[in-house]
């Protein structure tokens, strides 16, 4: 335990020592809350800007320089002061508290994501499984929210969302398994450290492809955005959300986007490894932004796929490729081809 100061004169230095301690900084500032909120709101702006450029528009422009970068803050303020409409006969408790729980669940997995050798909050031995376990709670939350809003579009959308996330979780886990086999650890720090000489995208290229497709499906991005399909379902499972509730849901969704991008970076793109002229966290964030760009771009250029295509892709092709790739990885590791890179 930390010894509390008894002398009143010691209180200010004590507080300063707490604020400047590494634990506090990791928790609150850098991989912690402030960074997460900033990064996810930056991602909303970035997505709008990128899509606008793809479609030869300009996008957000007026709030702040350059290019309306303060737009997320303006949106947040607007949404906070908007009236919240709880639909008639909706389940009020669930409707208001599920979004908060979603934000909580979206922030929780960042505890184990390493942004640098020392920039990790909790060095868990089961880090990867922790991320998967926490994200697997999302679908049930979404279906409960959709049920609670007592409206038809959210219910259909929530059902589709549940079904889709459930279908793509399995190939995602199994494609991550070959990374685990290569690194021989579930600890994300160890996984990144194992990539010092060679990024796992090279020995595990197939699982990278599978993982990336599954990430897009988990995030409900086009071409997999059946749960929110605007022409059919208005806005999918969050049709009835307004005001603060919508803000919380949006924050949770973008936190999940950021989480999945960092996860791809950490598992396949070597995490913080890069030429030493930039500090480690900068490399992680740069790679994450590249991954996020590739996740966002299809939204501007691809049409939506059909439900049966979704099923066939997830349950037959991706699952079989992922399983086959596990055994391919086993063969590669056992044959000792990778021993030159210390694997």
């Amino acid at each position, binding site marked *: 335990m930390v010894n509390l100061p008894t002398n009143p004169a010691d209180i200010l230095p004590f507080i300063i020592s707490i604020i400047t301690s590494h634990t506090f900084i990791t928790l609150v500032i850098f991989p912690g809350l402030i960074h997460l909120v900033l990064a996810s709101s930056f991602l909303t702006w970035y997505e709008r800007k990128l899509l606008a450029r793809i479609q030869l528009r300009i996008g957000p422009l007026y709030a702040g320089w350059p290019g309306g970068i303060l737009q997320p803050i303006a949106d947040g303020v607007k949404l906070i002061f908007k009236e*919240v409409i709880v639909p008639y006969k909706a389940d009020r408790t669930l409707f208001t508290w599920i979004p908060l729980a979603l934000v909580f669940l979206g922030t*929780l997995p960042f505890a184990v994501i390493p942004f640098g050798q020392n920039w990790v909050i909790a060095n868990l031995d089961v880090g*990867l499984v922790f991320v998967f376990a926490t994200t697997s709670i999302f679908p049930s939350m979404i279906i409960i929210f959709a049920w609670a809003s007592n*409206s*038809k579009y959210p*219910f259909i959308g929530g059902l589709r969302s549940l079904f889709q996330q*459930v279908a793509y979780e399995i190939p995602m*886990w*199994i494609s991550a398994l070959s990374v685990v086999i290569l690194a021989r650890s579930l600890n994300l720090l160890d996984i990144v450290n194992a990539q010092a000489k060679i990024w796992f995208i090279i020995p595990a290229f197939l699982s990278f492809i599978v993982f990336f497709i599954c990430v897009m499906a988990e995030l409900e991005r086009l071409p997999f955005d059946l749960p929110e399909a605007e022409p059919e379902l208005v806005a999918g499972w969050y*049709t009835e959300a307004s005001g603060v509730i919508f803000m919380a849901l949006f924050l949770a969704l973008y936190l999940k986007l950021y989480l999945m991008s960092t996860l791809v970076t950490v598992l396949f793109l070597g995490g913080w490894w890069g030429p030493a002229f930039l500090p480690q966290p900068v490399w992680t964030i740069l790679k994450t932004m590249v991954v996020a760009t590739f996740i966002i771009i299809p939204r501007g250029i691809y049409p939506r796929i059909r439900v049966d295509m979704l099923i066939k892709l997830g349950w037959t092709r991706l699952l079989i490729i992922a399983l086959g790739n596990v055994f391919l990885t086993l063969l590669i590791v056992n044959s000792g081809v990778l021993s030159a890179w210390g694997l």
Partner: protein
Amino acid sequence: MIWAVLILLFTGPLLTLPYLIVFPKRKEDHFRDMPFESGQVPQGEARRRLSMQYYPYVLMFVVFDVVGMFLFAWGISFTRIPIGSSLMVLLFLILLGAPLGYALRLALRRENW
């Protein structure tokens, strides 16, 4: 665990404050609070019984969830496992492959659900 507590402490006030500001219990207004249906008046019950079509996939997910967690337990330590025992895992997966194929065949037939 500390992380979880801290997030609760931070996101709690951060989001409940606007909640409290925005959520004074007001009189129910049937027309304003009506569910959105592109301007039409909603008919019938919203939480209608959902179709069975999605059921087999959720079931398959439950089964393969267990398989996935098992494979992770095997994957982190496979260097310390003799190769003969790893063949056991192969057998495990092959044994599960056949039901998966049959389940998919059942699930893809529309008339079953």
